[in-house]
């Protein structure tokens, strides 16, 4: 499994991320205040202003990040679980 902080996660997307049980479109407003600060840092680094995270398996933490024309696979059970909880937030 890839250990990945949210900052690292956004960095992956900016570097050229890929793809469900749930698909989540993330813009800067979709995150909490602390997270929004992190995303602002990432945007300053050239990250696209929006991208899509496709959670393909919540239990195993399997996700793909779709940004621009790229796709990167990510495994992070904690983040997948957090995203799953956001469904009803």
């Amino acid at each position, binding site marked *: 499994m890839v250990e990945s902080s949210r900052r690292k996660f956004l960095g992956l997307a900016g570097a050229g991320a890929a793809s469900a049980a749930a698909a989540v479109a993330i813009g800067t407003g979709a995150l909490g205040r602390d997270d929004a600060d992190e995303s602002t840092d990432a945007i300053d680094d050239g990250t696209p202003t929006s991208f899509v995270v496709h959670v393909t398996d919540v239990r195993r933490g399997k996700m793909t990040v779709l*940004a621009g024309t790229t*796709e990167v696979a990510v495994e992070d059970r904690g983040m997948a679980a957090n995203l799953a909880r956001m469904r009803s937030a």
Partner: protein
Amino acid sequence: MSSHREAPEISKDPVADNTDVYAFVSPDRPDTVTLIANFIPLQKPDGGPNFYEFGDDVLYEIHVSNSGDARADISYQFRFRTVVRNQNTFLYNVGPIGSIDDPNWNRPQFYSVRRVERNGRTQTLGDNLPVPPVNIGPRSTANYARLARQAVQRIDRRHKVFCGQRAEGFFVDLGSIFDLATLRPFQNLHLIPSAAAVGVNGTQGLNVHSIVLQVPITQLTRNGKAPKDVMDPKSVIGVWATASRRRARIVDDDGGTQAYGPFRQVSRLGNPLFNEVLVPMVRKDEWNSQPPSDDKRFATYVRRPELATLLPILYPGVFPNLAGYKKPRADLSAILLTGIPDGVVPGFQNFTGPVLSDMLRLNVAVPPASDPNPLGLVAGDPAGFPNGRRVSDDVVTVELRAVAGLTIPLVDPSFTPDSAASAIKDGTTNTNSWYFDNFPYLGTPAGGYQTTPGVPAT
């Protein structure tokens, strides 16, 4: 139909729906091959105010394999860009469109053409090339043929290209065939009989959007030469087309959409009717997403086609020999999956090797026919289907007869085809504007004002 709405998912996405592919040695420029891929099926000519157009969010490709492994050695990629000139009108055009750059045309579309080779070499052949408007009517597009000619572009000095609306050139008795495989000329022999009748062209008066590219033969062959020996393996190319969409699509709050991620193939076509008639419904979407090089997984549907089983049931007593034939259909495998090897048809081959793959196979050493027979190779005309496909080839009749057993003796001389196998047809011809003898070969599209639904196009 050929491949119009042939699979559940793509039937809901007409902009990406590849309906027909053609590949032939150009009759007026025999040192070139013309490649055509049609999209957006069954266009009613009066379909305004938002008339038909290519998708800005679709990657359209025509692929050529020349090395025998059914993988693309050359891909021609087409991307479109739409401009809205006047933000304050609902109209497609705010006056007569007298030329292709007329400002009265409110929604012009432009495109780029790229050639991508397997080794990664990429070349932009043209950019900002114009698509003509659709054929609206005598006030808006008065001289449509002239307008369309303005969109024929020479690019890179060696290629000629046209992207835009054309008259549907494919013809079939759609309403009849999908009514339990009725063929009107023979429906008196059907299990549920009615009086025999004349076939009805289901695409009458309808248009499509065509991508037409003319390429020097030397740009397509394995060794960069124009072969003259029909039996030379390097004289055969495989051709297919695809459409791809980005992996994710988000509908914005303002009604627009955003696409994310890499392109994924959603439509594919090589031989006409392959996915439509041979592949079972539950696997059609999967087939559309796959490359030809993986078609071994679908080979069983070619070797034992469902339609060959149905014909003797639906036409009792008409196909007794076909009903008794239990061997895998090696004839159909050769025609559709490998090409016809040397020794089957004297003086002809379009074999691409053992990789089972659905591609149109064109032997470019076969010169254009001076008097083309729409039944192509089975009628002794090796310049026609299934040696590539010309716009005028009657592929429905050819494939019906092949499935009915007419081509089995090519590989199994012990089999005698039923007499009906050489007579079976759907009884239709092209009732839209006729084909051109020169580029872009497909006829002028039916006009919106001029066309009464159900009446032949004018």
